[in-house]
Every structure is written in C-alpha cells, then in structure tokens.
C-alpha cells in the first residue's frame, strides 16, 4: 500500500515538474519573442554563402565582396533616408547544402529579423533559400547564381542581379559571330564539354540551343562527373575525333586544369576554346595552369583590366586591395555590386516605410527593387545598368569575354567598348608556343 501511494506521489511530482518546466519554457519563449522593437539603430541584412564545405574557398571571396560593400556604404553615412543608420550583415553558412541554406534563410528571417536576404552562390542553395524568403515575403537579392530556372519560377520577391546562363550563351553566340566577321568565317562547328552538375548541364543546354539557332553545327557534346573524375583522356579523345572549330567548356577547377593538360597531352587544339568562367577564372587555376592556359577564351562577368575602362572601378579596387591584399574578381565584384543594388533599394524603401515595421518595410523594399533603375555608370560592372523584369531578372547585365595572354593574365577582348586587347585567333597549336 505504501509503495502504491509512493508511486502515485512520485508520478504527481513528476507531472507537476514537467508542467512547471513547460509553462516556464513557454513563458520564456513569449518573452524572448517580445524582445527588441522600439527605435531601429541598424538595418539587418542576411547573407547566405557557402562558408564551409567544398566551396568554402569561393565563399570566402564572396564574403569579402559583401563585407567591403557594406563597409563603404556605412562609412559614407549608412542608409540616409532612414536617418543614416548603418547596414549590419548577419552571416548564414549554407555549407553548400540546399537544406542548410533553407534553414539558414528561415533563421535569418524569423530569428534575426533581417529586412532582406542576399546569396547564395550555388543555384541549388539559392533555390531553397529563396523559396523560404518567398514564403515569408522577404526580398531575396541574388548577385551570383546563373541557373536560368531561378527566374522562371514566377517568384515575386526574388531579384537576380547577374545575367544568367541563357543570356551568357546568347552573348557568346554574338561573340563568335563577331570573331567570324573579324577573321573570316573560320568557326562553323562547335563541340561542348561540361561537368554534369546542374550548372554545367544547364549551360550546355543553353549553348546547344543558342548555337544551333545561330546556324552553327554542334558536332559533339561530352559530359563527365566532376566529383570523381580522375582522367579526361577518353573524353578529350572523343572531342578530338569530332574535330570542332570551337570548343565550349563548362568546368570546375580540378577538371578545368585536367582538361587543359589532357588537351595538351593529346595535342588537341581547336581554333578557339571558350570557357564558361567557373574553374577557368578561379585564382588557383590562374596561378597553376601557366602557359597551357594561354589563348583560352572565357566568358567573364568582370576582369581586372576593366579598371582602365571603368573609372569607378579602379578606385574601388585600390581600396579593396589595400584591405584584403587581392584584386576584386568576378565573384567578389558581383557580390559587392549586389550589396550596392540592395542599398539603392533600401534608400528608396526608407522613403515609404519604417524599418521598425518589418513587414511593411520588407514590402516597400520589394517594390523598390522591382522599380529600380540604376544606370551603368554607377556600377563597377561592365553592365548597362540594373533593371529587373517581372521575373526579377536584371535585363541590363552582360558578360564580357576575356582571353589569357602570354603574361598569364586575362585581358578583356569583347565587347569592344571594354576591350583592352585584340583577341588572338585562331589559337596557335600546342607545339608552336613557348612557356
């Protein structure tokens, strides 16, 4: 009998403790939720980047671009229309994984209460992170993902600053047309080699479409799995057998290096090689590839020699270099630009709503982004400006084409208004070069 009462007493005690704990937790939760409010002393922006994982190297570059833009904005007086409050960045690490990107987006939106999100480099991560933003009605500024699908989803809160792969492909056709005009119709056949992740596959798809439409013959398409590639011997052999005039390449770093080496090893030199940035413009590639990389064209969004062409850029780059010890590159420059674009929209939004009323402010910011029209001369990018269409795609952006010359540096060769060198065409055979 004693044991029965004891056990009842124990159960009651445990139940009481549990209820007290739960009630306490809920109360704490409600209190926590109510913290903040009042006067806004900063405008919080969430930035999601691959700060760990395979793409951490790129992530670090992107982070520097954002950080530098924010520093500049704040030191010139913050968001003036909101009373000169500074922008604060809250970082989110996607670890390169779509699911982490999504949960970071949610954390930044609900826990950190950011006014907008910026990111997330990889298209797969941008997909999930921007989806969360869309549901929460938070503007998402994407400076750096190029999958065309992103702006085909009908999202209202998603704004992509950079041109996407289909736009690049169209521009690359224009570039090849221009080469043909200039050097006498030497390019008729095209081959494509690409890694098989979403990025490479979509790029290849866009190329195939654009080049076929423009009357070029696509003679061979080869794809490989970058994560496990140990040799590209047969891939290159297959390309060589197809004997194209132009080789289009979408590759990451390791495979880009491997591809160039294998092409040299197999003495495969088409008249031109045109790469889709990525691997070909990473610092490790540029440092490591040496003479083997000469004369290869790459589509770029940005290049150091634009300094001579874009006056604002030199200034920015000098300051950036002084701080980080390196030049801006396509990645850091795009994210830098993305942050500035957001800033211009913030100035407009502040005229319509107060940041303390978060929902209204986010909505105003979205409208500001949708109506934004930034002229090209306010940017460091070789663009005609920033103006979003109904899908949130910047219609005024464009790429450039660069070519690595004998000093191991890339020079802009196209469009002509930004060009600092004449292109070398056709590419000299491997056996006839120095280095």
């Amino acid at each position, binding site marked *: 009998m004693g044991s029965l009462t004891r056990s009842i007493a124990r159960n009651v005690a445990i139940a009481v403790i549990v209820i007290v704990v739960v009630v306490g937790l809920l109360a704490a939760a409600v209190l926590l939720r109510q913290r903040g409010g009042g006067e806004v002393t900063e405008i919080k922006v969430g930035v999601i980047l691959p700060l760990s994982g395979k793409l951490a190297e790129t992530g670090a570059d992107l982070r520097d671009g954002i950080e530098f833009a924010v520093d500049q904005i704040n030191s010139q007086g913050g968001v003036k229309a909101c009373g000169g409050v500074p922008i604060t960045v809250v970082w989110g690490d996607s670890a390169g994984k779509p699911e982490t990107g999504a949960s970071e987006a949610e954390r930044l939106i609900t826990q950190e209460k950011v006014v907008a999100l910026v990111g997330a480099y990889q298209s797969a991560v941008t997909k999930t992170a921007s989806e969360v933003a869309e549901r929460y009605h938070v503007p998402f500024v994407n400076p750096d993902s190029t999958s065309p699908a992103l702006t085909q989803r009908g999202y209202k809160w998603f704004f992509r600053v950079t041109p996407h792969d289909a736009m690049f492909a169209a521009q690359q056709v224009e570039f090849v047309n221009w080469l043909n005009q200039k050097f006498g119709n030497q390019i008729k056949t095209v081959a494509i080699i690409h890694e098989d992740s979403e990025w490479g596959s979509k790029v290849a798809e866009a190329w195939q479409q654009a080049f076929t439409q423009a009357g070029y013959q696509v003679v061979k398409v080869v794809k490989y799995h970058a994560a496990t590639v140990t040799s590209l011997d047969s891939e290159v052999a297959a390309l060589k057998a197809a004997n194209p005039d132009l080789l289009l390449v979408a590759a990451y770093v390791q495979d880009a290096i491997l591809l160039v080496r294998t092409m040299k090893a197999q003495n495969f030199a088409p008249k031109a090689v045109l790469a889709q940035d990525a691997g070909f413009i990473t610092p*490790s590639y540029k440092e*490591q590839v040496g003479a083997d990389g000469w004369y290869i064209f790459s589509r770029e969004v940005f290049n150091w020699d634009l300094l001579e062409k874009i006056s604002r850029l030199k200034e920015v780059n000098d300051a950036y270099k002084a701080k980080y010890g390196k030049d801006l590159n396509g990645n850091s420059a795009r994210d830098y630009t993305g942050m500035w674009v957001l800033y211009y929209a913030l100035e407009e939004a502040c005229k319509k709503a107060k940041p303390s009323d978060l929902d209204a402010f986010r909505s105003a910011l979205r409208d500001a982004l949708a109506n934004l029209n930034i002229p090209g001369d306010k940017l460091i990018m070789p663009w005609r400006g920033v103006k979003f269409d109904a899908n949130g795609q910047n219609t005024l952006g464009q790429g450039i084409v660069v070519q690595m010359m004998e000093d191991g540096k890339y020079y802009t060769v196209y469009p002509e208004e930004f060009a600092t060198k004449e292109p070398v065409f056709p590419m000299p055979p491997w056996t006839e070069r120095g280095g």
Partner: protein
Amino acid sequence: MVSEIDVISAIINGILVGSIYSLVAMGLALIWGVMDVINFAHGDYMMLGGFIAYALYLAGLDPLVAVPVAFGAIFLTGVATQRLVINPVLEAPLVSQIAATFALLLMIRYGAEAAFGPYTRLVKVSYAETIHLGGITIFVPQLIGFVFSIFVALLLYLFLTRTYVGIALQATSQNREAAQLLGINVKRMYDLAFGIGVGIAAIAGVLLTTFYPLFPEEGGFFTLLAFIIVVLGGFGSVFGSYIGGLIIGVVETVSALFITPSLKDVVAFIIFIVMIMVRPTGLFGKKE
C-alpha cells in the same frame, strides 16, 4: 564513330592512369590481407603523400624526389595509426572497425583541409611534354608515373617474396597462428603492413601530383576505386590488385568512349557488385 585508334589510345591511357590506381589498391590489399581490416581512410593517406610532394616542389625540388620522403613519412604515420587506432579495434566487431577508420578519414581529409585550405594546387614539372606515336598521344608525366608504379610494384614484389620480413608478412596473412609459431611477431607485422600499405598509397599520391591537380578531398574516390580493384584482383592478392588496377583504368577510359563519360564509374561499380556476387575471390584470388 569510334575509331580503332581511339580505342587503342583509350586502352593505353587507361593503363597509364590505372597504374596509379594499382598502387593505391596494392597498399589496401596488403593491409586487408594481413590485418583483415578495411581501411576507409586509404585514399586520404594518398592525398597526404601528394601534399608532401607539393611541399618539396615549393622548395624547388622535383616532386618525384618526394617518393622516398613521402613513403618514409607516411610509413611512420601509418605505424602510429596502427598502434593508436587500428590495433585497439582489431578484435572488435566490423561496425566498430569501420567507424574507427571512417573517423580517421574525417580527421585526415578535413584536417588537411583546415591546415592547407580547400584550394586546388598544381605542380609544374619541366618534363610536362607529350609523345606522339601514330595518333596516340602519351603525356610524359603519366608515363613516368607508370614506370614508377611498375618499379614500386616490382620492389614490393621482391620485398614480399625475397626478403625474410616480406615472406613473414605474407605468412602472417595466410595463417596468423602458424606465423606466430615460427617466431614472427604478429603485432610487428601489423605495423609493417599498415605502414607499407599507406606508404605505397602515398607514393601513388606523389606520382599523381605530376599530372593531376592536388586537393584535400581527392582521396575519397580513390578509396572507392581501390575497394573495387582489390575485389576484382582478388582479395589479399597484391599482384592481382596491380592487374586489377590496370583493368579498372581501361574499363573507365573505354566505357567513357562508348557510353557517356559521366556514367563510366557506374560501369566500374557494377563490375564490382557482379564480381562479389559471382566470384568473391576475384580474378587472381585464392579460394577460401
């Protein structure tokens, strides 16, 4: 579409790249055979070898100088690993063994990433030339790698069959208890097997740097390949693993030629599964 010369060329290139797989697999086979442990971190020791080569390259030396250095350094690392990590779990259930070597994988691979950064590095050797033989092109560093790999395989063969220690190692893998009764210190054999096994993988890593980019995560796929090769060549058969490596190299290049290259690994994995189903002793393996 595919011409004869392409096929021949694919086969030759397959053999060249396969000879590196072979080295990695031989080391795995040695460890597997002597200790009955599957080393999931095997390819990561290979990667460490690559970084040693890179360090010497930065110091102005030819990366091939690193062959003995990497072997020595990784041998010692391997002996230390065997004593601290492998030996305590030798008698444990399979799941603990796998957990332990998997922990090693995480520590080595991501330790290297923390220490050196995730960046890709490239070594530029003066002999990065190509030879052309009637439509077939051969990249000299790969050829040198092939020659080295044969040389190392031969050395290992001689060591295992001509020296007392080597024979003792083989003896241990065939009958642990009988080996003990002949005065062979089995613990010492484990040290040696693990040390030499990962040491050879490190040599493969060095050779690889002369024609393949170096990065901290490069080992993962090589470990998977090594499993395939060891099973193909015959579990515990060091010689079989060498041939198995060449076969997998050729299978990859040739299947890349005939089906889409991004599926060439599927072919290798399917061969692997079929192999363990129909003939788990491998092509050159011993019956149980």
